[in-house]
Each structure stands twice: as structure tokens, then as C-alpha cells.
């Protein structure tokens, strides 16, 4: 008598193609400093920051059902702590890494009281916290109010060296965040996150600890958004509070995730790439560029409410970024 067996698979050809494409993209981005120089590196950092922001906002809204319009709290505060720690004598690159850790800690503390708020209260509450942080940062004499301050400690590195280092750090962080998301979503907790996304009450009634699960996502999103803020500062090298705590970032996050497709990692990445492309080609048109962005968002809401990935995903033979289980065969 043979032992009964059950074969499951958690990946497929579509996933292999996607992973190969992502690896090629990562290599292409890594060699940009040698090919496109300082300017090219700066744009690549912008793309990676957008991807980070979209991934993290999607993790919050798309998976944990936490719609926040104040993620600039983590974005802006991480830029500020990078300035502060560098001013205190820490190497600016170490200051960036430390700021990511501080962002995670701030996320954990914030989660203790914010996660008990309901939908709208949570959204507005996060915005209030972000505004509060903005005001507090302005009180620091080092920042000189809205005049701002430069990350002059970066000048210890030659321009070519630092632009390449910042890009590679941004690439490493982005890969780490995508890997963390993938590992998390494939884990026990990840299945719970996906379940909460689909039906919170249903998840509760089969024993999912909803609060704990949401906290994990919230802290991850805080850390990733903080990384984006610190990297944006390193790339821009100038800290003006308004430019980091400004509401435009919230609009960008919403745009990328809604256009790309809420609730899928693939959607967030595609949305960020699309946003980057639109900004690169049309960003110089000023107000008309913003009008165009708004128009695109409206068109998507009306015609493709599930976003680009909501249209592409179901047409592929299997998951591109695989998180599920497929039963292959069973003799039970």
C-alpha cells in the first residue's frame, strides 16, 4: 500500500518569466551610473522611490484595508531624522539606514492608537499626525522653518560616487522590500492578510487575529515609506519640510496604486512605472501635467476600476508574483 500523497505547487511559468524580467530590470538599473551618469542615476532613484511608495501604500490600503492619507508622516520624518543624525556626525548613508529603523519604530508606536480608529477616522487621523510632525520639524532651529537645510555631509563623497551609492542603496532597499512582501504574503500571516483584504468579518470568524495582522502590515509600510523619504532626501540633498510633508505625495501614492491595480504587488509596481513615465514626459507642463494626471485617474476609475493589473492579471496563465497554492495531484 502506498502512502497517500498530495502534490502542491506555489509557482509556475508566468512567475518564472516575471522573476527573470524583474532580475533583468534590477541589473539594468544597477549599471545606470556607468551608462547614464549622475542625471540618469537621479531619475532612477526617483523611479525606485515611487515603486517603494506605491508598494507600501498598496500594502496598507490594498491588503490591510487601511486607507491612509498621511503616510507623509513617515516619508517626511525619515528625511528629517536623516538630516538630524547626519548633523550629529553619523555618516549620511548610515543615517538613512537608521532612519528606516526609526520609521519602523514610529510606525509601531503609532499603530498602538491609530489602528483602533475606523476607516475615515484613521485616514484623517494619519493626515493630522503628518501635519503635526510637519509643524514639530519646523520648530527645530536646525531646519530654519520652511527655508530648509541641505544634507551637506553628503559632500564628503564625490558627486559621481554618491549618486551611484544612493542609487545602489535605493535598489537594494527596493529589492529587500519586494522580497519581504513576497515572503510575508506567502507565509501563514500573508494568507491572513489576503483573507482580511477579501472579507474582514469572514477572517475574524475563522480565528484570524485581525489587529495583529494589520499591525504587521502597518509597521512594514511605515519602514518602507521611511526608506523612500530618506532616499528622496539623499537624492535631492535638500530638505524643505513642505516638500516632504506635502499632500502631493499622498495624491501620487493614490494615483499609482489605483491606476496600477489595488491589492496586487504587480499593480503597485506597474502603477509606479506608469507614473514615472508620465512625469518624465509631461512633468514640464506644470499645471497641465497635474490636470492630465487627474484626468487619467478619473478615466481609470470609470473604465478600469481594477487598474491595469486587474485587466492584465486574469489574462495570464498563472500568478506573476506567486503567493497562492495550486493542488497538482492527489491520490487521497
Amino acid at each position, binding site marked *: 500500500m502506498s502512502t497517500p500523497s498530495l502534490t*502542491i505547487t506555489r509557482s509556475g511559468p508566468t512567475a518564472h518569466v516575471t522573476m527573470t524580467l524583474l532580475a533583468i530590470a534590477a541589473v539594468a538599473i544597477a549599471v545606470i551610473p556607468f551608462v547614464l551618469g549622475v542625471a540618469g542615476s537621479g531619475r532612477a532613484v526617483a523611479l525606485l522611490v515611487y515603486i517603494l511608495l506605491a508598494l507600501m501604500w498598496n500594502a496598507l490600503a490594498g491588503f490591510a484595508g487601511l486607507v491612509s492619507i498621511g503616510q507623509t508622516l513617515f516619508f517626511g520624518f525619515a528625511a528629517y531624522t536623516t538630516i538630524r543624525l547626519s548633523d550629529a556626525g553619523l555618516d549620511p548613508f548610515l543615517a538613512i539606514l537608521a532612519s528606516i529603523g526609526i520609521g519602523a519604530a514610529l510606525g509601531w508606536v503609532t499603530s498602538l492608537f491609530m489602528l483602533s480608529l475606523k476607516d475615515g477616522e484613521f485616514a484623517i487621523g494619519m493626515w493630522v499626525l503628518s501635519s503635526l510632525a510637519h509643524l514639530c520639524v519646523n520648530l527645530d532651529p536646525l531646519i530654519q522653518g520652511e527655508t530648509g537645510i541641505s544634507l551637506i555631509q553628503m559632500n564628503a563623497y564625490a558627486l559621481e560616487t554618491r549618486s551611484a551609492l544612493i542609487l545602489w542603496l535605493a535598489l537594494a532597499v527596493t529589492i529587500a522590500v519586494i522580497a519581504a512582501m513576497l515572503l510575508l504574503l506567502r507565509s*501563514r500571516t500573508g494568507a491572513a492578510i489576503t483573507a482580511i483584504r*477579501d472579507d474582514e468579518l469572514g477572517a475574524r470568524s475563522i*480565528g484570524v487575529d485581525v489587529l495583529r495582522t494589520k499591525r504587521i502590515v502597518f509597521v512594514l509600510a511605515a519602514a518602507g515609506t521611511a526608506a523612500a523619504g530618506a532616499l528622496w532626501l539623499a537624492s535631492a540633498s535638500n530638505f524643505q519640510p513642505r516638500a516632504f510633508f506635502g499632500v502631493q505625495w499622498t495624491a501620487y501614492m493614490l494615483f499609482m496604486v489605483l491606476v496600477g491595480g489595488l491589492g496586487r504587488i504587480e499593480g503597485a509596481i506597474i502603477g509606479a512605472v506608469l507614473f514615472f513615465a508620465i512625469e518624465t514626459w509631461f512633468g514640464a507642463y506644470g499645471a497641465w501635467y497635474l490636470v492630465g494626471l487627474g484626468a487619467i485617474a478619473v478615466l481609470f476609475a470609470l473604465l478600469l476600476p481594477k487598474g491595469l493589473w486587474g485587466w492584465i492579471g486574469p489574462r495570464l496563465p498563472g500568478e506573476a508574483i506567486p503567493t497562492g497554492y495550486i493542488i497538482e495531484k492527489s491520490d487521497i
Partner: protein
Amino acid sequence: MTSSSILQSGGISMSFGAYKVLDDISLNIAKGEIVGILGPNGAGKTTYMNLLTGALRPTGGQVFLMGEDVTRLDTAERCHRGLARTHQVPKPFLHMTVFENVLVAVHHGRAVQPANPVMEAWMVLKETGLAHAANRTAETLGLLDRKRLELSRALATDPKVLLLDEIGGGLTEAEGDALVALVKSIHARGVTIIWIEHIMRLLMETCTRLVCMAEGRVLADGTPEQVVEAPEVQTAYFGAAA
């Protein structure tokens, strides 16, 4: 409280504002019973189930699970202690496959993790007859299969007490027979069952005890035969048809 009591509500009441939905319900469910709860629409049956599972907090009274006061525990904590339910309107995780739906319940619904969660989830699907649809996303299921999935997920939490909320609606004669057989086989494993149902035949064939509710109160409580023949039940439940 008797020593064999596995689930007990002590004088439980629920009001929404001035409207009293449940008034002082005290029921004692013994280990190993299959209790059917019937009553006209609006009798408070589903509200009662929500209070037992912790989806709602009662405005008065207490709930005991295996002698422990669980009134202040939430649904997930009660689930870990062995109290599972199905919802009248199924709550599938639409974008996950049937298998993944059940696996989440194995992973998160039990106090102790099984050695092989994947196999446990598969065995549940075999038992409920959904194994053939394991790889389909839940959104592709019809209502009957969604109800089966609801039951599968509840079973996957390895419950000691299982609350069923109208899983028999819309079944054919043969499907009804299959459901009765399934519920009996779950019961035979030692699971205590409370079943809210409109379809009298299913309850009569399955239950060891019937409780009839109307307007937020218990009208009758006894063997199926006693309850069906009680005059107040005849009036409240069948009155409209007579």
C-alpha cells in the same frame, strides 16, 4: 450550569437603541447535542448566534464556553477555544482559491497547529465534497458551493461546537439528504452542533433537540416532536399558514 454543558447563554439580552431584539435568553447546550433553532423571520436567531460567537456584544447576560466566561472575548479568541460558525450570507475570500480559503482557517483557527496543515485542509475539502473545486477562486462558486465553503472553513478550525446559520436553503431533496448525512457524520466525530434553519425537514431528521424562538424569546425547548406539537409554536410559527 451542569457539568456536561459545553455552551451556555445566561440571561442574554440585546437591544439596538430602544428596540429589544433578544430578551433574557438562557439556554444550556450539552456536549454531544445537535440542537436545531427555528422561528419566524425576525425572531432574533441570527442575532443570538452573533452573540454566541462574539460578533456582537450583548447588552446584558453572559456566554460560557466549556465553563469559561467568554462574554468579553472576540470572535477569533472564541474560535481558538473551539467555537466555529458559518454565516447565513457566506463570506468567502473571493480572490483566494477554495483550498487557500480552507488553509487560512487551518492556520489561524486552531489553538494548536497541526503537523501538516496542507493535508488537513485537503481532508476537510474531501469531507465536504468541494475537493473537485480546490483550485478555483471562490468568486467563481455558486451560492450552494459558497455555503459548502463556509462549512469547510468552519470545520477546518477543528471546532468543538459548530454553529450553522441556514446552510440548507435552496437545496434539492437529494442535496438535503446529503447535507443531513454530512452534519450527522460531523456530529459523530464528537462535535456539538447548533443549527439555525428554516427547512423543518432537515432539523427533524438531524436534531436531538429543538428550540423555537419568536420575537426575541424562547417559545419552546424540547425533543423535535414536543416542540413541533406545542400550541404556542403552532401559533407563532405555523399560524400564518393555518
